[in-house]
């Protein structure tokens, strides 16, 4: 089973994939409205906001958790190797 290269979410159903396309390597939540994958900054901001909203963490701590999680995902490998 595929997992999203940008957030790690398991993708089983077509609806889980960006644009409903199982050929895609990223999920529906990591796609922009036009179907392209979100940038590093967009994804980090989205994850940080999500952690604050659903877990109530301090914003800086949430941003750190988002970045630590992204460090382990293939989509952002190059970003951290820079």
């Amino acid at each position: 089973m595929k997992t999203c290269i940008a957030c790690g979410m398991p993708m089983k159903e077509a609806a889980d994939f960006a644009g409903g396309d199982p050929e895609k390597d990223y999920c529906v939540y990591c796609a922009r409205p036009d179907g392209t994958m979100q940038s590093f900054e967009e994804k980090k901001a989205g994850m940080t906001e999500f952690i604050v909203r659903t877990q109530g963490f301090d914003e800086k701590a949430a941003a750190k958790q988002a970045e630590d999680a992204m460090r382990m995902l293939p989509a952002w490998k190059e970003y951290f190797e820079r």
Partner: protein
Amino acid sequence: MESKRQLQKENTRRRIMEAAYQVYSAQGFTAATAAIAKEAGISHGAVFVHFPTLNELLTCLTQDFADRLGLELHELTEKSGDMEALLKSHLDILSRYEDFYIRLITEKSLLPEDAQTILAGLQTTAAYHFSQVLDREIKNRTVKAIPSHMAFNTWLGLVHYYLQNKDSFSPEGPLLLRYGPELTSTFLNLIQF
């Protein structure tokens, strides 16, 4: 021949992971790697052939656990209609890994940084599924308009308090099997109209 060797290698790796899961569940993360080797039925040195450092073993084990739990959480939200079903399923999943999960939440500081990140991600996954169902129920006016983070933290805080004090609540048997129904009904009473 190469593929057979590869398969054997993968089997041994899996055996070490299973043994580590059992040993750490029973003894905690300070358990000796020699105990893991004994449980797996292999030499002590063979553990390090597959996992050169202890941190690597702990990180792989946490990742494997998070993958399994994450997938089960993902599947249950697709099936679960309401909050009651979600809470029951959440506890059902945790109860299957109860001893290991208790180690993860009580001995987090003993884990390497990467494993702690994986564990944090696991709770974010749980929070995601929780918020999906909560938002839906708030919209349907079956649940009070409680901020998502407070509802999730109250639930997780309650469950973790019982798990962290298992020696007082349920010293001789599985805790969630015994208290799960009471925890679920109490939480539902607090959030529902």
